[in-house]
């Protein structure tokens, strides 16, 4: 019975998310474009699928992954588990880093918004960008970002130093990158942090800020999402660069040996 309530709540939430979009689209369609839409029936069915799908997805997450993810985040940051007193060094938190990377990677693979962008990217690049290539590159970026973000919370260093350094790296990579990949790479920073990643990663940040001595959850608990949005840009640019080098390497005329 409880499941039904959760499910109902989640679907209601999704409907509330869709309503403003539907109102804007319908309003512009009627008052500005003034043309009937092709395939209205198909569109409506598609929207119903989206609402039902996202509702089920969120209800399922609330019953399974969110509680377990939050529980794990609490347990792993528990001083009793870490077996170290207030004198714990940043090295003693190694399970936290491993968990942060693993959870960052896997939640990103499950992120529906990223799946959507990857499908579109493959479509318009005529297969040049593979769905899984993009998703794995982005997920590796998030994994690195979240792990580094937990390190920042544990050491208590300033967030903006890391993010500004990240921007500098992104700008340098942009200078050398293939021009066509740049917009997609920048987009991938924004799409990674949504439905699945944000709640679990936020719980991890708040849990850490609560248990690490000297951290204030109000101030230090934030910032993991920021890491998770800068590092995928680097990862996608690096992936494109690597693919280019590999291609140049394979195309190189083989003179020596062989």
């Amino acid at each position, binding site marked *: 019975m409880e499941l039904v309530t959760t*499910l109902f709540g989640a679907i209601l*939430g*999704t409907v509330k998310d869709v309503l*403003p*979009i539907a109102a*804007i689209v319908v309003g512009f369609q009627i008052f500005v474009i003034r043309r009937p839409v*092709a*395939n209205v029936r*198909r*569109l409506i*069915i*598609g*929207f*119903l*699928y*989206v609402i039902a*799908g*996202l509702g*089920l*997805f*969120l*209800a*399922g997450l609330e*019953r399974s*992954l969110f*509680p*377990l993810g939050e529980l*794990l985040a609490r347990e*792993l940051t528990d001083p009793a588990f870490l077996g170290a007193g207030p004198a714990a060094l940043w090295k003693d938190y190694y399970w936290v880093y491993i*968990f942060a990377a693993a959870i960052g990677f*896997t939640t990103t*693979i*499950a992120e529906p*918004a990223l*799946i*959507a*962008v990857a*499908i*579109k*990217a493959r479509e*318009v690049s005529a297969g040049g960008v593979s769905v899984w290539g993009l998703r794995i590159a982005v997920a590796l970026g998030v994994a690195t970002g979240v792990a580094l973000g937990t390190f920042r919370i544990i050491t208590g260093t300033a*967030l*903006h130093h890391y993010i*500004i350094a990240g*921007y500098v790296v*992104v700008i340098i990579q*942009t200078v050398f990158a293939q021009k066509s990949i*740049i*917009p997609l790479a*920048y987009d991938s920073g*924004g*799409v990674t942090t949504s*439905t699945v990643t*944000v709640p679990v990663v936020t719980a991890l940040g708040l849990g850490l800020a609560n248990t690490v001595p000297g951290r204030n959850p*109000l*101030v*230090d608990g934030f*910032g993991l*999402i920021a890491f*998770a949005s800068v590092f995928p840009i680097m990862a996608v640019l690096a992936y494109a660069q690597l693919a280019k080098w590999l291609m140049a390497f394979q195309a190189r005329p083989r003179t020596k040996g062989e």
Partner: protein
Amino acid sequence: MNQLLRSLLSSLRDLGPILLVVTLFQLLVIRQPIPNLADLLAGGLLVVLGLTFFVRGLELGLFPLGESMAYAFARKGSVFWLLIFAFALGFGTTVAEPALIAVAGKAANVAAAGNFIADNIEARSRYALGLRISVALSVGFAIVVGVFRILKGWPIQYLIIGGYTAIVVMTAFAPPEIVGIAYDSGGVTTSTITVPLVTALGIGLASSIKGRNPFTDGFGLIAFASLTPMVFVMAYGMLI
């Protein structure tokens, strides 16, 4: 039937890794049994089903809608109305975004703790609402700039690097308590429904305008939408 089975399998592949990670950590690192195993299984089933429906709905509903709106505006040829639509879409989808409401509430608590605002419910909810409106305005502005860029065919990197510079400069002047929230707000604004719709809109526009390449010019709207909130939130923190 076959197709449904295949998409169910692919959803299972998308969600398998995360299930594996939480179970392994729980059993091998924490060494505790999994609480509510039945819940985990039932929830996992719902998640897999949900993702399958969502991906199907993307291709039937969200993608075609975004693209057909783009084509309709391109045929109409009115840049003015296109930009108004872009703003409405950005503002309208963000202002009610649950993740943003949550972040704005937390930000108000931080501001109250830092004595920027009076520590009572009224002042806090006014602060949170102001923050939500400024983030929604920033996303509306971002989609307008992004659409305008597609129309003009400008390279995206100059605009984004300009945005980064603005963030770096403002970080130096914004109250330190707001910086963490501002940086995070860039990531939370783009929801799972907005992303496919806005992406399809950009690609539709780029493919209906002569001389634009859907791949090179169509992407980039989300990038703006995750950049401008940081600027606007820091500005909000500086003004209040």
